[in-house]
């Protein structure tokens, strides 16, 4: 019988591992900037801060950058040059400290950028990135991961660390890339003993006790099917400024725009893609200036429907990891969670957590 190999590593040794990895990888980790955290490239393990609640922007930017060159066209030679290889860094990347919600965000993007048609710009970056995930044992401020079942992750990482007693991490190995990290520094890892497995189990128990369930996904798609004309959309639509911040910080929002930019020498043009959001006025504009989502509330509503209803049709799962970033980012104070919970309350047809009402 083959038994899955799990390890433990001392917290202080994780820095040593990162130190060694810096020779082979571009390393990204949460770092503190003023009062917030962001994923940033680091050159010194001391600058990473794994004791964080949520980063302001998601790690999506490392796989699908805000602007990216797709191809160049040479007007004289009439040739297209695929810029795929140029836009992907030569050095592989290592991201340290990704929470379960964000790994689930990547699993969602894997679906969008895979399937019938490949999106190689995303996929090549994903292949070249190694991920060390980090289990949260306590809830962050705005997150509601447990309500959408993304506090748990079964794949999509290479190593996954869970804090256990004695300032150590329990290490799940998720892929051959994870194995490679371990062979990079075998002296830092110890095979997990039965006591360690016990400690791991205790940590998970602590996590499950501390993470709240704010609402139930059960009947959400049904609810949304019924709630198209709910007055709530007009109410929150009045506050929404259509600034798009909620979509830009979201780990699963993936809409993009494509534009051609001609070089100053007029000899070539570059086709770029840029993050776009359905909150912007011209997103659904078509010929004859007909706009399928003319009013701000229509665009705000669409974001909810795309993520929580359309994605279920398209990819089989909702496009929300409960990370709470959109809640923190919204200048109008609109809470994605509160809106969902309110809809659930208005339309619930299945038992709710309070026991059915």
């Amino acid at each position: 019988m083959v038994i899955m190999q799990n390890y433990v590593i001392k917290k202080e040794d994780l820095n040593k591992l990162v130190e060694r990895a810096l020779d082979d990888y571009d390393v990204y980790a949460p770092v503190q900037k003023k009062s917030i955290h962001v994923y940033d490239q680091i050159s010194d393990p001391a600058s990473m801060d794994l004791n964080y609640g949520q980063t302001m922007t998601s790690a999506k930017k490392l796989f699908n950058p805000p602007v990216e060159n797709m191809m160049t066209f040479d007007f004289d030679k009439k040739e297209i040059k695929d810029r795929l290889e140029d836009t992907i860094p030569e050095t592989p990347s290592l991201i340290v400290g990704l929470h379960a919600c964000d790994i689930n965000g990547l699993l969602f993007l894997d679906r969008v950028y895979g399937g019938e048609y490949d999106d190689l710009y995303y996929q090549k970056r994903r292949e070249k990135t190694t991920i060390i995930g980090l289990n949260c044992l306590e809830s962050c401020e705005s997150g509601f991961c447990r309500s959408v079942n993304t506090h748990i992750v079964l794949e999509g990482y290479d190593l996954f660390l869970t804090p256990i007693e004695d300032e150590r991490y329990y290490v799940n190995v998720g892929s051959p890339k994870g194995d490679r990290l371990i062979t990079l520094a075998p002296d830092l890892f110890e095979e997990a003993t039965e006591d360690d497995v016990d400690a791991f189990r205790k940590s998970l128990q602590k996590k499950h006790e501390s993470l709240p369930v704010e609402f139930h996904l059960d009947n959400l798609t049904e609810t949304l099917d019924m709630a198209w004309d709910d007055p709530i959309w007009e109410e929150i639509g009045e506050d929404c400024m259509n600034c798009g911040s909620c979509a830009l910080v979201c780990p699963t929002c993936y809409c993009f725009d494509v534009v051609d930019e001609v070089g100053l020498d007029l000899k070539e043009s570059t086709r770029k893609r840029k993050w776009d959001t359905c909150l912007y006025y011209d997103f659904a504009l078509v010929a004859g200036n007909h706009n399928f989502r003319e009013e701000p509330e229509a665009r705000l509503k669409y974001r909810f429907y795309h993520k929580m209803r359309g994605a279920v049709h398209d990819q089989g799962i909702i496009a929300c990891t409960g990370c709470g970033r959109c809640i923190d980012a919204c200048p109008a104070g609109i809470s994605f969670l509160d809106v969902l919970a309110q809809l659930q309350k208005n339309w619930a047809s299945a038992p709710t957590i309070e026991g059915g009402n």
Partner: protein
Amino acid sequence: MQVEVKRENEYIPNLAVLKNRTDMTELETLFEFEFKDKDLQDHFSYKPGQFIQLSMFGIGEAPFSISSTPTRPGTIELGIRRAGDVTEAIHRLEPGDVVGLRGPYGNGFPLEKMKGKDILIVAGGIGLVPLRSVINYIIDERDDFGHMTLFYGACLPEERIFVDELENDWPSAPDVDVLQTVDECHDTWMGNVGVVTTLFDKYEVDSENTVALICGPPVMYRFVVKELLDLDFRRDEIYMSLERRMKCGVGKCAHCQVGHKLVCKDGPVFTYFEVQRLQEAI
């Protein structure tokens, strides 16, 4: 010989050369393209109702329905209306100029389900572009399909496209009726005047064993669908092609999403049954 038409990177178009252009109206021109790569040109195949993404390098990319039929291999024909930056630039192309094409994308018309049935086609203005592909397909594979009727409406007589086929080729094909109408006429027009739905009063449509295909400006759908439902057409036997802004054509950018469906992948052809359940569809 089987050639691999799948490209390494889906977004990179294939180069194609403009072979010929025929101005149809003040705004619309038929463009004929051939791929530079001979293998690809020889093996390029598609279904009526599918579209391609056309790149005008330096300006942008936009979706266009293929107007030729796979039953007549040769150039890839696109009927294009001047509407904005990309289409203006396309209209400035001269034979020999190079563009990018990728595709074909989308589901196309349900040819298999249409076999053995009568077909009613209702086209408005430039909506005839994708429908011309299916009309010529049916004429070329005549034995596979029942009777075909075409209702075509345009605003003015001189705004009609594919006039030669409308007046000569199609009416003379076996088992085909063609009825035309214009919203406003000039002295030269002897035919029907009125919106396309007025043709339903002029011609007896039997919905039994008939499939309806519609394409035209958004306002047309509601009125045509109402006529068809009054005639007892089944909601899942009314097919319509929807138009949305598209950036990727392959289900990645979400620009074309309607309700929970993507026009580029789930469509552009939908049944009325599907459309009536989609928010913001028509």
